[in-house]
């Protein structure tokens, strides 16, 4: 039996999210068990809360905190202020999601005894991974 599955990736795993954030330049990331408040660029507490947070001082002088808040279904939703969305746009979120999928897939399959055999970035930016195990 073979199967081919296509998935619209949603972020669910904080560890893989932290690795993905490091890939796009944020290596100072807070991970909390319970959601914490986000702060605006003037140090003002916002009503929004998040479990995974990049604080504004790591982003830019006029930036607000960027958060990832866990929804009831277990997936994370990005909270990015309108100001920061100019730089941290849909395209940025797509790239973050691609890096998330990479780290999540490799970590999950390594748990199941697979090893990463090859990895390449194809034309157009698609990542191709081959993982193998003897079972």
């Amino acid at each position: 039996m073979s199967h081919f599955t296509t998935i619209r990736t949603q972020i669910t795993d904080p560890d893989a999210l932290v690795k993905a954030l490091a890939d796009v330049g944020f290596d100072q990331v807070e991970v909390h068990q319970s959601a914490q408040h986000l702060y605006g660029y003037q140090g003002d507490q916002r009503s929004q809360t998040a479990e995974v947070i990049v604080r504004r001082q790591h982003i830019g002088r006029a930036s607000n905190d960027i958060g990832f808040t866990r929804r009831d279904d277990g997936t994370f939703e990005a909270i990015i202020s309108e100001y920061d969305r100019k730089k941290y746009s849909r395209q940025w979120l797509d790239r973050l999601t691609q890096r998330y999928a990479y780290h999540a897939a490799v970590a999950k399959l390594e748990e199941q005894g697979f090893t990463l055999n090859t990895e390449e970035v194809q034309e157009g930016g698609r990542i191709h991974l081959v993982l193998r195990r003897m079972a």
Partner: protein
Amino acid sequence: MKEANMELQEIDIYIEKDGQVRIEVRGVKGQSCIDLTKALEDILGGEIESREMTADSYENAEDFVLSQQRSR
């Protein structure tokens, strides 16, 4: 001869620039084929857009194991 019954399982993963993932599994017998990628699908959010299944590589997997045994 436990080793002779072992099979090489291979998973191809394609990750698009927008994060969409395509998982291709070959050479895994029976139901374990689907079980194999359940945890992977879950960590990627579990929102499956499409799934195709083919029975042909069941034979391919057998062929692979047989040819391995023959070469010993």
